[in-house]
């Protein structure tokens, strides 16, 4: 059923859109957890690219890298959520612009 395969740039466009949405989410939302989720979105965009090309050249390396990226996402999520928990416990807030201990 490989008769009319999907053109490559569709995938690229898809991942671009996803990436853009992720960036918007990271930049715009105040809620830290949602920022983290948007970062996950960005990572997924990357994954889609990798997978698309791995399919294009029938080469599994892309998938391997996708696996690494997922691992990375897992680590990032764990640590980030840990930080968020600790922070929430101390400051009773989740809003990024109330995290201003570094502020002048």
């Amino acid at each position, binding site marked *: 059923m490989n008769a009319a395969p999907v053109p490559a740039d569709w995938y690229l466009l898809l991942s671009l859109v996803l990436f853009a949405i992720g960036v918007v989410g990271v930049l715009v939302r105040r809620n830290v957890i949602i920022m983290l989720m948007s970062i996950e979105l960005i990572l997924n965009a990357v994954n889609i690219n990798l997978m698309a090309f791995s399919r294009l050249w029938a080469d599994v390396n892309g998938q391997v890298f996708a696996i690494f990226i997922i691992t990375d996402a897992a680590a990032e999520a764990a640590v980030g959520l840990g930080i968020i928990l600790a922070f929430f416990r101390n400051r009773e807030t989740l809003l*990024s612009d109330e995290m201003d201990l570094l*502020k*002048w």
Partner: protein
Amino acid sequence: MNGPLLFFLDHIWLIPLFPAATAGIMLLFGRRLQNSAVSALCVGSVFVSFLFSLGAFFQLVAMPVGERLATKILFEWIPAGPYHMLDGKLANFVADWGLQLDPLSAVMILVVTGVGFLIHVYSIGYMAHEGGYYRFFGYLNLFMFSMLMLVLANNLVLLFVGWEGVGTCSYLLIGFWFKKKSASDAGKKAFIVNRVGDAGFLLGIFLTSALLGTVRFVDICAALVACHFSLGDPRITAIALLFFVGATGKSAQIPLYVWLPDAMEGPTPVSALIHAATMVTAGVYMVTRANALYQLAPSAMAVVAVIGALTALFAASMGVVQNDIKKVLAYSTISQLGYMFLALGVGAFASGIFHLMTHAFFKGLLFLAAGSVIHALSGEQDMQKMGALSAKIPTTFRTMAVATLAIAGIPPLAGFFSKDEILGRAFQHSHALWFIGWITAGMTAFYMFRLLFLTFYGQSRVHHEVEHHIHESPNSMLIPLVILAVLSVVGGWIGIGGRFEHFLEPTMRIQRHVVAPHLGPPGAPETKREEIVEHAEETTPAAPSEELILMGLSVGIALAGIGLAWHLYLKRTDLPGQIAQKFHGFYELVFHKYYVDELYDALFVNRAKDLGLALGSFDRVVVDGAGVNGAGWLTRFVSRLSMWWDTWIVDGSIRLGSFMVYALGFVSKFLETGYVQNYMLLIVLGLIGFLAYYFHLAHHLLH
């Protein structure tokens, strides 16, 4: 020679290893071990290495006389690379961690491990109630290790390692009861005095490697053979003398003997093992080991002989008046060592070693017995407070009597043979030396029997509370006494007919070839020269009549000394006091050991202190006063000057700079919001900029 049958010879390196291992265990975590475990481990290890030594000895004996030399080089230790010798030739200095077993070291390891083992057994009983049991045995095994390294080393550097090791152990063990001021002082004294000797020894080693380009004994002999030194070559003499300085330090010869009497502060087994049987004889061993050099330096040998003889007499005279039982034994040790050096000096190396061995037996026995006496009297050392113990502690008494007879040189006990041999050789060399030795023999007999009588005969002068719990020592202390007693009876017999000498022959034979060329006329054919050598080597055998006369004389004077002691200390016990009154000055002089310690204090110690004080005052006055304070004043002045400059010019400019920075920061801080998202925004901005630049590039590339 590495046949499968020569297991022990291939594994001589194990002999020092066992004590080393147990020492490590003890010193690392002996604290946690039971006393039983400690004694089992330590004594066991020493026993095992004794067995190995026996095995090695017999395998060595089994080999043909010519090649009785087993060398085991474990690894190259200091490959120092090539350097120029005195004569400008290139030499390659190599000190390897190598062991060598020849008849000489075979005898030594037998003595060390054997006597050492017995004394270990003895210490089990003796130290049973002491604190720091594991510490004591740890040091003891460390000492065994070092001593074995010393006697097994195949080069001077490794020998020096053992040399320093035994020094350290003796320091540690003398100061074993380090809470006692006198003990720790004695330890320090021993250590420092030894330093003097060791300095000489070290210089000797340097000179050797500079002159002969090697430190291996075998190669030294080879080198001596190779480059024909004339007999009495000053450089060789220098080396020999330097070595002998080291020997005087370690073996307590004039002028460095002062530490040995104080060393009696240590536990008695230590005195027996280190300061009687083994360590102090290291000097003798070393000189014998280096006899190739000495035979090329007759003057050095003369020095050795004279020093030895004087020491013998001198120490003996001091021993006569001591009241502390161990002190007496200590001085007697010194004088016996003097004997050995006398032997070495007159070229009777074998006899020296022989006496070393027998002396190890009976002197070790004496110390152990004395220890047993002290043990019985619960720590009393003063002979004035003893007496009439022969019934109370019979075994101790018998064994000690045997030892005393042996050291007094009564045939057929061990002492007789060795001492007589030495005297005989001395007589052939020079009558004066013989006379000194002879007198000394008498004095030896006298003070030893004085000790015996004061301790065991007469009426008891023991304190009352001590009186009623005098007790014979436990078996673990008595059995070694008995064994040693047997040894000091039969130990001398192996010397009959010069068998012992022949056994040591190879060690001495090496330098036949060394000495040979200078004895024979240069052009003489080999065979002829050999026989000349034989001739030279052959100590012109004294007529049997003369030998008999000498024997008679020495036995006679010994008996005389015994008789005198009997007369003075059993018959007319008032006499000694009167004599002391009559020759009061002389008595005082001798009793205070000729004020040598005071002399040294006055000469060296106080001078050193004065020097220190002088330097201190110089420091205070010149350096602090003129230098530091003056500089301080100057600095203060200059600083006052520079302060103005600082406040106005430097600080001014800095304030200006900081103000500018502040101004800039005030502007730029609005960029640094501390909000994560603003930073992310900036990142995105940067990304955009980068992409824009990339498009710019792409545009260029397209056109």
